[in-house]
């Protein structure tokens, strides 16, 4: 082996060792930060989740651990979700109060509108909140609770009779307001919420199996 070759191999080896050393230091820094922040991040996420659930169902309406009391439903197609649905369940004194689950309006103006909706056991809506959307700012964003009161209009409503006719925006002959300059956005939201209510009725037994057993045994 010539001197030149061995020098080349030597410098390559040094470079490789140096790179490995920096990778280890960098990885160590990340691992250390992760270690130090892990609990806080988990707590933050839990709290953010709880806050978004309590927007829909105020804290004095239930007494269980709303964040971790969940059931997973495998089929989310009725909610336009292609993943299993995580349903949060609210109880008071062991009696079911409401279920909170996500729903997607796939036909928004700027793409899918992600929402979280809560349905009380009697089939009335506890509330709806938009969690993520890409509607036009200023036109479609009154669906956000911080921009307008529009979303509160859902509270207390249920499927009722003739839901296909009533659960529409006014432009389509229904009962819900649309906004100036935007019909597509509220239409998508109203229809998605209706589908959510239908989904809840169809899956009631799966969400609250405890009550299903009670009713069947009392019969």
């Amino acid at each position, binding site marked *: 082996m010539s001197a030149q070759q061995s020098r080349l191999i030597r410098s390559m080896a040094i470079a490789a060792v140096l790179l490995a050393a920096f990778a280890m230091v960098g990885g160590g820094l990340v691992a250390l930060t992760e270690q130090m*922040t892990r609990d806080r*991040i988990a707590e933050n996420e839990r709290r953010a989740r709880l806050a978004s659930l309590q927007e829909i169902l105020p804290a004095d309406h239930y007494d269980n651990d709303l964040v971790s009391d969940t059931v997973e439903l495998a089929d989310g197609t009725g909610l336009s979700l292609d993943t299993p649905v995580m349903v949060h369940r609210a109880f008071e004194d062991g009696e079911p109060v409401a279920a909170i689950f996500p729903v997607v309006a796939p036909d928004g103006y700027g793409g899918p509108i992600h929402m979280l909706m809560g349905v009380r056991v009697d089939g009335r809506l506890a509330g709806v909140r938009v969690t993520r959307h890409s509607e036009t700012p200023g*036109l479609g964003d009154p669906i956000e609770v911080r921009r307008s009161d529009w979303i509160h209009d859902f509270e207390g409503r249920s499927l009722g009779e003739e839901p296909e006719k009533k659960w529409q925006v006014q432009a389509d002959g229904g009962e819900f307001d649309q906004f100036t300059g935007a019909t597509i956005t509220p239409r998508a939201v109203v229809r998605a919420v209706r589908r959510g209510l239908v989904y809840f009725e169809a899956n009631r037994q799966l969400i609250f199996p405890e009550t299903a057993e009670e009713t069947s045994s009392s019969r």
Partner: protein
Amino acid sequence: MSTYRDIAREGLWTNNPGLVQLLGLCPLLAVTGTTINGLGLGIATTIVLIGSNLAVSFIRHAVHPEIRIPVFVMIIASLVTAVELAMNAFFHDLYRVLGIFIPLIVTNCTIIGRAEAFASRNPVPRAFVDGLAMGLGFTAVLVVLGAMRELLGQGTLLAGAEMMFGAAVDLTLQPIPAYDGLLLAVLPPGAFIGLGLLVAAKNWIDARQQRASASSAKEARA
């Protein structure tokens, strides 16, 4: 060799990353919908910039030129990840608003640009000042652009300050009451137009100063 004053001046004005080098435009344009968003990303970027400049300058004699770029990338990537985790832990709401743009600090050319052009050739204290000045220069542009767009777009200033300073602090100003908002300022074109105006304003100020110094030099000769 340039003084600390020169280094600071470079970063804050003459060679400002946002207005002159036009680096890091993607986050610059994307998050400046409000002042607080701009400030948050600016501070995160500044922290990464100072950290990477310090680290790069510290190891500048140990690293061979052939492997310096991968080493810089590794330093920057680990710093950004650490900052991202810290923001998630301590400024959770702001973290959620800024979203993808925090990890994208990795791709901000200002950072690797300063590592390569300055920190790898200068001693540690100078690299620190450069990182601080460049970071603050970038932050200033983000804040000014954010304030412009927020004021024109929603008629508020400093909305969402509680995300950074805790729930008790509400600094929201409403200089224009009952304002309908200007959609253009909120949408992406507003960011481009706003940045264009800022660059133009900087050039205008520079040109005026040049003219002033030229004419005063003439007077001195006469």
